[in-house]
């Protein structure tokens, strides 16, 4: 069957035999966007986190059929080197990644959190950011999340004043 959606700002149609195929494998193996990671296949680790209509979704457990007509953002669509998303800028400033494998999932979850809650407290972060990082980069991630909120606020102020 054919499923159509918007991904990273462009419309896309995929032909898929099994409509229950996890969106993760469509993104990785059909659309060849490898930034979204496979970690556990059971929505338990968050490495596959992407955004569907602005909400953080664990794509390993999200059937592609539910993506029909939706707007999907993956790490490749979050920002670019020339125009980084505040979360990516903050991640670079704080030098967060170690092995780096779980980081796209954390960044996508953080970007979704900041959409809902532009100035999260430590408690908000603890409650919302529940992905798993084995290298233990949580300490720097927390700093980067607060920094990303600051950058977002600064950008907003600049736009308003500009």
């Amino acid at each position, binding site marked *: 069957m054919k499923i159509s959606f918007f991904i990273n700002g462009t419309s896309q149609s995929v032909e898929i035999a*099994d409509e229950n*195929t996890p969106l993760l*494998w469509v993104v990785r*193996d059909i659309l*060849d*966007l*490898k*930034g*979204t*990671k*496979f*970690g*556990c*296949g*059971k929505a*338990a*680790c968050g*490495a596959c986190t992407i955004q569907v209509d602005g909400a953080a979704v664990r794509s390993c457990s999200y059937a592609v059929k539910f993506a029909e007509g939706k707007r999907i953002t*993956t*790490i*490749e669509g979050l*920002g*670019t*080197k020339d125009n*980084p998303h505040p979360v*990516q800028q903050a*991640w*670079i400033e704080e*030098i*967060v*990644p*170690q*092995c*780096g*494998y*779980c*980081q*796209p999932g954390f*960044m996508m979850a953080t970007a979704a959190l900041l959409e809902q809650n532009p100035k999260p407290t*430590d408690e908000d*972060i*603890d*409650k919302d*950011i*529940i*992905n*798993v*990082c*084995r*290298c*233990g*980069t*949580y*300490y*720097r*991630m*927390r700093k980067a999340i607060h920094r990303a909120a600051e950058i977002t606020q600064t950008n907003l102020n600049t736009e308003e004043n500009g």
Partner: protein
Amino acid sequence: MAKEKKKVSRRKFLVRGGLGTVGVLAVGSYIFRNPIRRSLLAMANTLDVAYMGDTSHPMLWFELTKDNRIILHSPKVEMGQGSFTSMAQMAADELEIAINKIEVVHAATATGNIDGMSTGGSTSVSGLWQPLREIAATFREMLKNEAANKMGVEASTLTVKHGTFTANSKQLTFAEVAEGVTEWEIPDTPILKDIKDYKYIGKPIPRVDLNAKVYGEPIFGMDATMPNMLFGTVVRPTKIGAKFISADVSKAETMPGVVKVIQEDDFVGVVAHSLIEAENAKKAIVVTWDSLTNLQTEDITSVMTVGNGKSTIIQKEGDEVDEDGLVSMEFRSPIGAHAQIEPNGVLASVEGTTATIIISTQVIGITRREVADRLGLEEEDVNVIPTYLGGGFGRRLHTPHAVQAAVMSKAVGKPVKYFFSRKEEFQHDMFRPPTHHVMKGKLNANGLLEHLEHHFVSGDVGNNSAMIPSMLPTIIGADVGAIRGGFIQYGKIPNYRSVYWHVDLPFATSWWRSLGLLANTFAIESFMDEMALRAQKNPVEFRLAHIQDDEAGTRLRQVIRAAADKAGYTDEVINGRAMGFAASTDANTPCAQVAEVSIEGNEIRVHKVTLAMDPGISVNPDQVKAQCEGCVIMGMSAAMFEQMHVSDGELSPTIYGPYNMALMKHAPKEIDVVLLQGTDKPGAVGEPPLGPIGAAVANAVFRLTGKRLQNMPLQLS
């Protein structure tokens, strides 16, 4: 002194093309004439492993591109530890080129530049410190001699900066020097720069892989693809000890998308057009297993008890002790999983008599040999292309799934990608072995230790690993991994000993970041705190009073003082928070930690960890700090939350969540790292800071509750 002339063959020059490369420069030098013997000695003495690559033959370390950049082919893999960045720093400083002109890539085995052993043991930067700088300096001199020829001046009149040679008013870039040159004279290794003259070494340079990791570039083994690639999977048993006998594959063979079901003597695999088709077909295969066990966790705990198995005294000073007045206390640690987020996986392509293996592995050379042996290929015809690792932690020191993927690829004549499910990852891990410790101690009339003993039992860590020469355990009589951190580091105690007991387990256990260090330190340092309390002494002062006056003792004392001072260590409980102290020495790197802890409900909360460590020269202080922060959190996770169970012969849990790990909410809000430099070379960094955290937290809990937690994971009830 006459320069040793070495003609480098053209074949070596033409290893690679198509990247705008003007010439591939092979640079060798004569550093370790006998790396194996040197390393064995180093391992047995200090548990510090020297670089095991061959630096005595010309091989590909550096490529110089037309636009005057350097591609550094790393014989070590990047698994998060940051060694690519440190290597770029070391090379840039000796080459005299800007660090942003250096790109570090994993050396494929076809280049010849591989570490014969592994990436592990916290040795990448320390092991390459001397050879890499020497090779870079040799390369610089090689270019300089050629620049002098081209410019018609004496080499001694040339200055070099930013990848450019200058004499009088003339300039030649490295790339211009190399242009058209096909044969090089390799000069003697020059004298290295003074450490104070380095521009990059010792500075907090941002990670060279930062952009790739922040923008989601496809750098991991899981991301590898090849044209016409198929997906393979292998049936794995759920029960411990199960041996493959035979399989009924008739149904699987007819399933949609299945290309072939492959039956070997030791495994059955299926190759299909998609991952899901392969997984579905796998479920339809009916396997007969033999040697099924019905083990429970209690069976493992009962066998894993000091007094069982074979013992080796690894340390002994002074006399036996009279049992009268001896304090004795037991500690345990559970089976631990690696739980790295990128599952083990591989992409193999076998064509005729050659094979290409793209893989996340810590053992490049061993993987190549295993594939060559199984397929009857020459090792040089198997090209292993390492990728970035989505976590290593020791798990990828065994990657024999490369063999299975290669067998499947050969059977279908196409590239085959194969990776573990998360359940397989948990059930077929090479676990951190469970341990049991008996500590014994006795105070003298002055409240100082007169006697201290550490008896401990562990399953295999280094034994049976392809990395460890089989005669090594015979020579030194103990498992080199299990004993890490198991030594008594307080040399002023008149009588002390450490006794290691070895027990075989029915499932595979092996290298887990820091090896025996976490559990051994948990036992020894919890007991040190206990004895300090009984002596009614401050635990920091109590430790200091027992440290000997040699170099190791001086460095240990300094980190203990630094951590205690920075944290403002106190025995008092203030506002419901207590501090716990612990220290360890691992691979010559001492580390001390203070954990600030409270109890909320039934949960232990770690608010702040102050850590002081002396790894010698910190090539990249920011990444040394990152390793310290990561070790604190991974160590907390293992010490406070994680454990595998065995029930009815099956290992569980098989998913994150039930396999309880530290999350964002558990991580300390503050990790304050103090780095000291007590030696003039870089030492181990990636594992030593994992030592003290378990004991530091448990010691704080004792101050809050009066209860000594003797089992990992630390639980209040």
